[in-house]
């Protein structure tokens, strides 16, 4: 009986850890989707419309390696229509397709490759939110944008 109890306990722990692991993988998958969605949105925008309305955020935002004090900010990109608020918000909490809450942080800085003109580098970081508390990084993506793309 003792051996049986130990075996069953071990199996239960396997099941429970598997449950947690699957849940975590699911969250990471959702986070990647959210990061992709944010990144792809910038690909639809004219170059001049890629900016943040405000580059400030909480400690989690400013503590990320992608954070820079000289991020690109703006308020309009005439003659084009202003981008959606979700594209200009540096830090926002959104609900994923799994109905969980995620924090999507966006960083936009100007970089210049050697021998080239200035680019805009966008980094999207998705963090978990548990009971309103911002947790660890689930997904992050980074890419650059050139004027010739639009």
């Amino acid at each position, binding site marked *: 009986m003792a051996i049986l109890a130990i075996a069953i306990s071990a199996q239960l722990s396997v099941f429970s850890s598997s449950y947690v*692991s699957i849940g975590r993988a699911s969250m990471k998958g959702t986070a990647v989707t959210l990061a992709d969605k944010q990144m792809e949105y910038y690909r639809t925008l004219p170059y001049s419309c890629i900016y943040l309305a405000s580059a400030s955020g909480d400690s989690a935002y400013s503590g990320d390696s992608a954070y820079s004090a000289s991020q690109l900010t703006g308020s309009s990109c005439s003659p084009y229509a202003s981008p959606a608020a979700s594209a200009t918000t540096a830090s926002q909490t959104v609900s994923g397709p799994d109905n969980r809450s995620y924090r999507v942080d966006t960083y936009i800085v100007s970089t210049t490759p050697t021998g080239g003109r200035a680019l805009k580098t966008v980094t999207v970081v998705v963090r978990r939110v548990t009971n309103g508390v911002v947790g660890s990084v689930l997904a992050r993506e980074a890419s650059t944008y050139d004027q010739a793309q639009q």
Partner: protein
Amino acid sequence: MKNRLTSIRSRIDLRLRDERGIALVLALVVMGTLSITAVSVAMFTTSNETSSARDRDVARALNTAEAGLNNALAVLTQQDSTGTQPIGATLASTTFTLDGYSGTYSATKTSGLEWTITATGVSPNGRVTRNLELKLDGTQSTQSTQQSPVYGYGFYVNSTTGCTTIAGNSPVQVSVFVRNDLCLTGNAAITQPGATSNTLTVYVGGKYTATANPSVGSPTQKVQSFTAAGGCVRQNANVICSTSSQSKAYANAYSSTPSAVTKPTADAAAVYASGNWHSPICTVGSFVFDGDTTLNASLGSVDLLQSNGRPSFDCTVWNSSGTTQIGRLAWNLTTKVLTISGTILIDGGLSFSGQSSARYTGFGSIYANGLVTTAGQAAICGPPALPNGSSCTGNWDPAQGALAIVGLNGWSMSGQSEFNVIAYVNGAFSATGGAVVTGPVITDTATLSGNGKFASVTTVPPGTPGAASSVTTTTWKVLPGSWRQLLTGL
């Protein structure tokens, strides 16, 4: 026998009804089943984790490759900004990192205005690679700027205040445009050249003022048009301009409508920035265009020909990267020929001392960052005219060669000299004695008391302020539909 069989059956029934030990069997079966299930779940979980991690790597590798394409775009639009790199030119493979991921990009020019870019993004563990391709397409547009109309006048004064005074004895025989008052004194006159009539236009933005003798045109050789926006004064009395008996302005048409023709701007800073003036490439001798590396009149005043004693030189100025020739200036002491092409800038004034007497060939402009002056008996003759002392024999034909001298801080001529050049002056132009400029004079203010001998030109040399220009602009854009993912990565 029957009893024995019954006994055996009874023993079998007893054995079959005895359940002792079955729990162990069941436990082993259940354990086995659960173990298999647990292993399956663990394997599924591990697989799911791996798959999830790979999904993230794929997304990030793809974005890194996309960044590589954009980096290449940023570089190519600078390095081939004019679209002039030859077909087959390449952008060498360049490695970059982005947020922990690495990538490379390279490009090849596949047609006159098309680059094919490839970029790769690799995950940190090297297990995921994404390769992308994109085409960059260029379109060219040419914007042409016509030559400033001021060169259609032989004598143009830009200032709107004061009076432009002409007091010489020889008539000015060229179209005149002064935006301020025009004051003719002594025996000054503006007349049709030779036996012509109805070819010259005279425009006065302010008031036309004349003493008793001066006239514009003549009763038999009228100028084409006479405009005095501020009216006419003759011998201190207001007169009606179109009443030639009062104004002595004989024209086929009269007007008082102001004109908006303005002097083109001389962008000395842009000219200075265009070339490496401090380090010309000289194949013969040497010449100093700039005393330092700042546009600050560092050379003071430069005696260009040194009374025809300057040693021969042949110097070319290139742009800062050494790829484009900005201008060439050469002097042959033996033949006394000055050769000019393109744009030349001398960071100082320009003087022609004593017996400087030469002819020039070519088309070009010389910017003098100071006063242009001559006080001796100099002659600068344009083709096919030849110098003869302080004058030129023959008539300069600007179609065969033309030199524009841009005086950035005034122009002063005295003595006996003849310059077959186009004079563009910032500040005051002054010609006294027998000094003449035979090309057009475009200036802010002017005083003439010598022998005015100007002429208009059809085409001014390149580099002259207000010269006709043609600028071709290349705009690079991603070719729609050219983005594709190459199936070489896992």
